[in-house]
């Protein structure tokens, strides 16, 4: 796997887990984070499951990347980088927990076949 792809995967997992620790389990006893990875010739799919407060990524505020220094918010970039670094972001909450599914298309597809 090339370095930029690895960086993107690390960035998305780091930001997602940081959000779960800070926001998901906020005010609760520390809980589990389960990470599973599936790799097929086309995609890498990372699934991150937690049992904290549910969160709807599509409803989160998008940071203003045009903002000047004084207006620039200090937070909100974690989710932004998850969307920037992944090709598909899906989120589901059910009785089995909160499940964030991150799909990254593997680059150099022609080399895969």
């Amino acid at each position, binding site marked *: 796997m090339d370095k930029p792809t690895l960086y993107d995967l*690390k960035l998305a997992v780091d930001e997602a887990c940081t959000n779960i620790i*800070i926001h998901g389990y906020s005010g609760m006893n520390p809980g589990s984070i389960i990470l599973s990875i599936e790799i097929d010739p086309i995609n890498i799919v990372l699934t991150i499951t937690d049992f904290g407060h549910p969160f709807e990524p599509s409803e989160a505020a998008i940071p203003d990347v045009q903002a000047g220094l004084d207006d620039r918010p200090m937070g909100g970039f974690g989710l932004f980088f998850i969307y920037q670094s992944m090709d598909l972001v899906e989120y589901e909450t059910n009785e089995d927990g909160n499940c964030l599914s991150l799909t990254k298309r593997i680059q150099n597809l022609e080399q895969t076949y």
Partner: protein
Amino acid sequence: MQIKDRMENQTRIVAIAGNVDALTAGEVTQYLSGRINAETKQIILDLSQVDFMSSAGLRMILTALKASRQLGGDLYLAGAQSSLEKMLKVSGFTSILKAFPTVEAAAVEFSNQDHGAAQSNESK
């Protein structure tokens, strides 16, 4: 994560190595806040040895940038590797601060500014 720093012509050059993430960014923020003051307000952050940075690292940069500008100084970035450079670009950071390929190029920019300021003082 490691931090090294040196002074050169009134500019503090802070070199960070390793990972700057939610676990380590606070340490860098604290380190910088103790060293940005009226005497040293020109900062170059050497990121050439940073393997990984998350949004927590960008918050650290923002905090230090604000501190140096409030004192009339500035903070430049130097040597960011390609993935980090891309993060700085897409998040709009490169429109609020200056980023250079090398520490030397950033230092030249500071010394040109100092020179310009000295000249404008002379002409007053």
